[in-house]
């Protein structure tokens, strides 16, 4: 064998070995984690075996077929879910525009403010929307108002970060050019930063609205209005066929909203 080739082969073997070792380590880690969780949660195969026929019976006897004649009961909650998601998205976008700008290190020179902005969004993001809903229901009472604010806060956490990240990626050449001709901070923002930021802005904002529909459908389970609340009521009253109808409403609402947001996002991005 050619000496050069031998060297290459040795190198290849060397470079492969750590990869395989890492893979082995990862597999062991996953197995240990599963055993640890298995023991901790009291998860057991017999329990699953007992559970499967129960789930099957529950679906066949109780859930199916949905009570289609109860569809009207879910009309208002569905609309309320949509309102919460929409208003929550608008509030989140307004909050996050401010949060995003102060968290972008190329727009704000003060490190402290950038860290503060990043910290606020990461805090808002890490607390789940349902947890926000629990707090807000305690503060402002049951109903969609609590849900809307909860959704807005959770959304602001995500959008604040994604806006800041996309603002940091813009081409600073254009900003410098405008600064050089004596444009004010605000002029730089609207003339150089905004046009570059808009595609990401629309993509993330629409995506957030999609996610909001999902959050809005569940915050009702802790009393914050919308479909979750009606669904919870139906299940508590053992009206499972009505609950199935409610689930179909959730499914339908999510599909329709996803379709509409995808279409309008593409239409808007095309025009930019």
């Amino acid at each position, binding site marked *: 064998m050619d000496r050069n080739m031998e060297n290459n082969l040795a190198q290849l073997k060397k470079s492969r070995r750590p990869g395989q070792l*890492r893979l082995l380590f*990862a597999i062991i880690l*996953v197995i240990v*984690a*599963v055993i*640890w*969780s*298995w023991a*901790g*949660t*009291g*998860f057991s195969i017999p*329990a*699953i075996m007992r*559970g499967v026929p*129960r*789930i099957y019976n*529950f*679906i066949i006897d*109780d*859930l199916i077929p949905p009570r289609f004649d109860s569809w009207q009961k879910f009309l208002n909650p569905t609309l*309320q879910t*949509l*309102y*919460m998601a*929409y*208003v929550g998205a*608008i509030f989140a976008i307004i909050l996050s525009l401010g949060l995003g700008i102060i968290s972008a290190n190329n727009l704000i020179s003060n490190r402290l403010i950038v860290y503060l902005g990043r910290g606020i969004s990461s*805090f808002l993001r*890490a*607390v*789940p929307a*349902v*947890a926000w809903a*629990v*707090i*807000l*229901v*305690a*503060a*402002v009472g049951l*109903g*969609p*108002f609590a849900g*809307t*604010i909860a959704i807005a806060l959770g959304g602001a956490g995500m959008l604040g970060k994604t806006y800041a990240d996309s603002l940091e990626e813009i081409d600073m050449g254009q900003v410098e050019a405008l600064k050089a001709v004596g444009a004010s901070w605000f002029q730089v923002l609207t003339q150089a930063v905004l046009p570059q930021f808009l595609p990401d802005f629309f993509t993330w904002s629409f995506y957030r609205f999609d996610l909001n529909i999902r959050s809005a459908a*569940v915050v009702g*389970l*802790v009393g914050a209005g919308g479909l*979750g609340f009606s*669904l*919870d009521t139906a299940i508590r009253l053992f009206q*499972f066929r009505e*609950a199935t109808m409610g*689930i179909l409403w*959730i*499914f339908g609402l999510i599909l329709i909203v996803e379709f509409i947001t995808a279409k*309008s996002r593409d239409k*808007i991005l095309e*025009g930019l």
Partner: protein
Amino acid sequence: MKKVNNPLNEKEFKALISKRKDNLFYLIILIFMTFFLFFSLSQMNINPARVIRGFSTLSDLIKNMFPPDFGQLSRLWPLAIESIQIAILGTVLGIIFSITLSMFAAKNLTPIPGLGVVLKGFFAFTRAVPALVWALLFITAVGLGTLPGILALGVNSIGMLGKVFSESFENINKATIEGLNSTGASRMQVFFQGVVPETIPIILSWSLFRFDINIRYSSILGVVGAGGIGWELVRASRMRDYPALLMVILVILVMVYAVEQFTGYARRVVR
């Protein structure tokens, strides 16, 4: 159109017209969105007075939260661990089932052509119904505890991972499968020797991403009684024990943050 007298050529002229149409389109959208915003606000009875009152009660509540009740920590800690364990089992369950089902859902691998469409419909449904709703249903079927939580996360994960995995299976190199088929490899051999090695980076990174999501879900599954720390949120708020409520939130924060750090590290290693 006479081009001589027209300062713009035809193409530029059309572009200008369509630009103007676009501007009108955006204006209409903007007006509609503003209208819908105020309509939604009025439908939900949200008005400035209520918002101001809401913020003052909220700030009172936040004042009452401090200092957080660190005495609760010894009780909350095991529950946070339980949440992590629920997320691990739910994710693993979801990965196993979604890989298996994706073998039948991917157009190029499925033994029965119609099955792919049915399974993709199933994925869309399990994905669209939120994890908490699945938990509510499983509680009714198998009773309170960690089991409904694990099943809920598993089923919800199948919806997302099944979609991604089956699509990535469909995108693999045709020659790989044909080559293996020509050597007389069985269906399982084709899958494990051809499909898995090519898609393993996608499988790993999406599984890690899903684990991140599942940790967030598992922290709140307890609000409907599906195990973990979530129930403590509801308990503390019902008892108006706000320092405890803040402590629960802090524990959730630490838990989510720690897991995010871990998956972030794992993602770098995988890459």
